[in-house]
């Protein structure tokens, strides 16, 4: 018995060692004695540069799988420091993290928010105002009822939604810079009972902050992927990054199109990510703040390409909410913004500039 075991280990070790030796030998051969098969030696060996693997770190944070890949000669641990920033922001922006800044504001224990949260709310409120109520951050009570985060898949009753809707009104939220000792913090005034949900905003801001952190530490070529939010830092050795747009309701590697992006953000919002079906209807997580029910339109997914991910995140939700025509109009009127919409028959509708991004 013992003999067999030893033999097995020996064999296994042998198999591991063999490819190893083959590999190094191969590399040496390759550089000295190339293209023996072709007969004619390679004319310009420098023309085919082998790109190095990116350094990638993954984690489950922000309720999704996130990753950062850097095309630089660095150690993984260098990226873990950046990844760790997510935790701080998650606590600040989450509705559900007890003791976090937004949680405390929603619970009414304080009306002061840190400057970062204040600035994000200001940006979101600006878009909410121009969207005429199609996109609102005060929708917290309603999203709490639907509770897509826990995946309980229960349709709230009409009465529950009606009473929750009474608290939804972004126009009643106002922010004013307050002169507290901590510096530029904000004071928020909003009606009692209103809950703010930054689910459609926060990931964009966090992605922007991660990019800032990477750049400040000298990384010029990387991709930040926060599940639905992709932010490119620079390019890939001069080439653009390939960002695939998921085919809704298909396998997770199925793509409907591929974008070539440099130094910009792409954010997708769609109904196929968090949804459930009941009575032949799809209930998804993009809630209409005016009715309290999921949006019902001809779209399955909207992807927005912008310079910064915060705007991209807000606009991807907003474009979905607006529907095809208004979304295209919005993209036309907003500088540096392209939109790619997937309709419910899997056809693509794109803004003028988006075609150039697809090859």
């Amino acid at each position, binding site marked *: 018995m013992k003999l*067999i075991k030893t*033999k*097995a*280990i020996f*064999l*296994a070790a*042998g*198999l*591991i060692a*063999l*490819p190893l*030796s*083959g*590999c190094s*030998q*191969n*590399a040496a*051969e*390759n550089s000295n*004695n190339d*293209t*023996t*098969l*072709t*007969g*004619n030696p*390679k004319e310009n060996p420098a*023309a*085919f540069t*082998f*790109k*190095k*693997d*990116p350094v990638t770190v993954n984690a489950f944070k922000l309720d999704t799988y996130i990753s950062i890949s850097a095309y630089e000669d660095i150690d993984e641990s260098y990226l873990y420091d950046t990844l760790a920033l997510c935790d701080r922001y998650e606590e600040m922006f989450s509705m559900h993290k007890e003791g976090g800044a937004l949680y405390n504001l929603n619970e009414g224990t304080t009306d002061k928010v840190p400057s970062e949260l204040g600035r994000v709310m200001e940006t979101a409120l600006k878009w909410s105002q121009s969207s005429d109520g199609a996109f609102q951050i005060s929708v917290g009570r309603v999203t709490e009822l639907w509770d897509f985060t826990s995946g309980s898949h229960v349709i709230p009753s009409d009465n529950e939604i009606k009473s929750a809707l009474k608290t939804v009104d972004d126009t009643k939220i106002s922010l004013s810079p307050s002169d507290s000792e901590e510096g530029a913090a904000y004071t928020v005034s909003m009606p009692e009972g209103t809950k703010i949900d930054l689910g459609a905003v926060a990931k964009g801001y966090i992605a922007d902050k991660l990019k800032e952190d990477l750049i400040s530490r000298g990384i010029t070529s990387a*991709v930040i*992927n926060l*599940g*639905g*939010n*992709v932010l490119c830092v620079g390019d890939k050795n001069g080439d653009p*990054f*390939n*960002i*695939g*747009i*998921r085919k809704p309701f298909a*396998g*997770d*590697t199925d*793509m409907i199109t*591929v974008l070539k992006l440099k130094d910009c953000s*792409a*954010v*997708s919002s769609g109904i196929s990510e968090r949804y459930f079906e009941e009575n032949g209807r799809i209930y998804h997580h993009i809630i209409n703040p005016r009715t309290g029910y999921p949006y019902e339109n001809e779209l399955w997914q909207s*992807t927005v390409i912008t310079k910064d991910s915060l705007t991209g995140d807000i606009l991807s939700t907003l474009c979905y909410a607006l529907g095809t025509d208004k979304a295209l109009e919005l993209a036309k009127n907003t500088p540096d913004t392209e939109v790619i919409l997937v309709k419910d028959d899997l056809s693509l509708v794109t803004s003028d500039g988006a075609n150039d991004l697809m090859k």
Partner: protein
Amino acid sequence: MTFFSVLRTIICLAYVGFFMLCGIVLFPIEFFIRRKDEKKAMRFSVTVTNWGFRCVTALTGSKVTVKGKKNIPAGEAVLFVGNHRSYFDLIAGYYNLPFHTSIVSKAGLKKAPVIGGWMKRFKCLFIEQNSLRQGMQMIKDAQELMKNGTNILIFPEGTRNKGEGVGELHAGSLKIATKPGFKIVPVVFTNTREIFEKQFPWVKPQKVTMEFLAPIDTSGMTREEIKALPDALRKILLETFEKNNSIVI
């Protein structure tokens, strides 16, 4: 490295050891089948190899998505041309190829314990990478096999590409198809390197994509077309590689 990847690696290694030990029983069985029916013996060798490869892939926790299978022409031998970044191109890829497909591999693999033995038994071709004469012989052997209806899988980059993308293709390896005018089916592997070599020696579960592309008919190709084929093919492989390697949102 996390505890799980160490455990996974140990399990995979243990399985490889077990697979090799099985050879003690399986090689004699193959020998007896071969005495009666050579074709059956070959099928047996392929089955055993597929079983080994399939289990190793499963034990790494990886999932292989095969796309474009309808691009493989039925009823004729084809040359599968793949990009090569990892041993897992073969391990995760071979069992998804139609029977019977022979592999062109480096001579080093011939000497690999047990697996080399199985490969010899289903007529794989081994190539000394620094011998021109032997290379020509290999091309002739491969053409002979294809005439008898055997598909060939070759990685024309000649060696595993240590990074992203697709390296230059050796024109010689495509001669297998171009001279007699067989069809070439490009096959693109994505995420195979990420299973093993990238964080060597630990294994990590990955979503591997293996995509067959539209066949290229080499019969009736002009001299210029054949000359341009390696670059054109590389471009085709690279394009799909980049596509399948993109971050999906």
